[in-house]
């Protein structure tokens, strides 16, 4: 019986010694791969930058879509105004049939213009959805980056160790050491697994980040190719805001003194009451000049937003390439760019909602 017990135990110890050496060898190999620096922090930075850029792009597209709605409405109003232009007193009045025909033709044209705006609105919303999809991708990437696999694996290893100890009926500790370090199979196994987990997680970051590079490059090409159209949309909105305000001021339809109040308040100067429209030609032209000056930055802000977003996409692509090359990933540049875009988007939003429209509202009172 002693023989039966002795021989297998010797074989067990011999085999376990080999396994232990194999573990040490594996540990050394893993340490020598140089792949063990976790890229988790860099991946998290990229996820953050990508999410911000994607959301800003979507906001910009939605702002352009809103510009199309504004333009369509304002142009329809303009056509209505022009149609009611008084003719010279000696002009022959049109027959009812001529009026009906003219109105019918005009309605068809206005409808065609409306349909074209609607189509463009759909294009812009499709691009906004595309940008939101980029945001979703980075949201997933953020969850991938933030997932702590090492902790999960450590827990599982503890469970396995307990199982082994239960089966053995005593603690799993062979008590071997190398040099002054108390290296046991348990901590070697732990270290190897953690090392392999980091390698696996890094591979996931690199694989997914690499996959996104070409998509981002295509997205930037699309954005840059269409930027002239974006600028035209923004310019058109500005032209319409400005045009409608000028038309109303020149028709003496609105009280335009509020546009000057900000300057007068400085000197505590007050307009006479009750409010009246300007009838003086010079005053009217002065107000027109002020409207023109105020409208100009709106188009410029939109153009600057497009440029800054294009630069943000460039920075984002660079971050991905840095991760691939295992270079340091710094958010400094893209953070500055994002701040610029955010400031421009807020200014654009403020300008389109709070500069001319409220001025028109005030003028209209």
């Amino acid at each position: 019986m002693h023989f039966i017990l002795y021989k297998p135990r010797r074989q067990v110890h011999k085999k376990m010694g080999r396994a232990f050496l194999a573990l040490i060898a594996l540990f050394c190999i893993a340490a020598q791969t140089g792949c063990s620096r976790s890229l988790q922090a860099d991946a998290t930075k990229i996820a953050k930058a990508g999410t911000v850029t994607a959301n800003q792009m979507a906001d910009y597209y939605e702002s352009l879509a809103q510009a199309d709605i504004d333009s369509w409405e304002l142009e329809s109003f303009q056509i209505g105004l022009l149609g009611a232009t008084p003719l010279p007193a000696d002009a022959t009045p049109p027959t009812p049939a001529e009026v009906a025909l003219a109105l019918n033709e005009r309605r068809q044209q206005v409808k065609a213009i409306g349909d074209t705006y609607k189509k463009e609105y759909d294009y812009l919303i499709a691009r906004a959805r595309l940008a939101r999809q980029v945001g979703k991708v980075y949201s997933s990437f953020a969850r991938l980056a933030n997932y702590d696999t090492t902790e999960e694996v450590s827990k599982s290893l503890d469970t396995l160790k307990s199982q082994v100890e239960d089966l053995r009926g005593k603690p799993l500790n062979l008590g071997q050491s190398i040099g002054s370090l108390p290296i046991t199979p348990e901590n070697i196994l732990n270290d190897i697994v953690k090392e392999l987990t980091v390698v696996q997680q890094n591979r996931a970051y690199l694989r997914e980040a690499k996959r996104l590079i070409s998509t981002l490059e295509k997205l930037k090409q699309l954005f840059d190719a269409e930027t002239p159209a974006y600028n035209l949309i923004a310019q058109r909105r500005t032209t319409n805001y400005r045009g409608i305000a000028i038309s109303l001021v020149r028709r003496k339809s609105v009280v335009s003194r509020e546009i000057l109040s900000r300057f007068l308040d400085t000197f505590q100067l007050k307009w006479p009451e009750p409010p009246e429209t300007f009838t003086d030609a010079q005053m009217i032209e002065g107000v027109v000049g002020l409207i023109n000056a105020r409208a100009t930055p709106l188009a410029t802000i939109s153009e600057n937003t497009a440029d800054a977003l294009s630069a943000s996409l460039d920075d984002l692509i660079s971050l991905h390439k840095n991760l691939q090359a295992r270079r340091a990933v710094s958010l400094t540049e893209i953070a500055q760019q994002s701040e610029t875009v955010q400031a421009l988007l807020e200014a654009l939003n403020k300008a389109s909602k709070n500069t001319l429209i409220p001025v028109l509202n005030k003028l209209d009172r």
Partner: protein
Amino acid sequence: MTDTEIAELMETQYLSIFENRDELAAACQTFAQLNQFIKNLNQANLNALQSRQRIFAVNEERVRELFGELTVAQQHIEASLANLHNIAGVLNSISSGVQIALQLLKPPLAVAAIV
């Protein structure tokens, strides 16, 4: 000429009429003239908008492709995340090692139990 150049040219043409619309409308002497002027303004607008739209239209396929690529990219990331969540891959390796160790440990224990 590129689509962009055409769109910019059409926009310039439209704006040249639009910026002077009040004066041009006021200069009309008859209803027919006023009507023709408004028709021309609308047509110039339509030309500008349609030429601008061509810039978007030619990229529609690219937009669809990009959307598809992004959807696939998200699926891949989710799959990677699922792999990390389901650490079976890593744990299977460990389990294999532990199973070997367990099997090595079992015979003497079994014998010991018999004894």
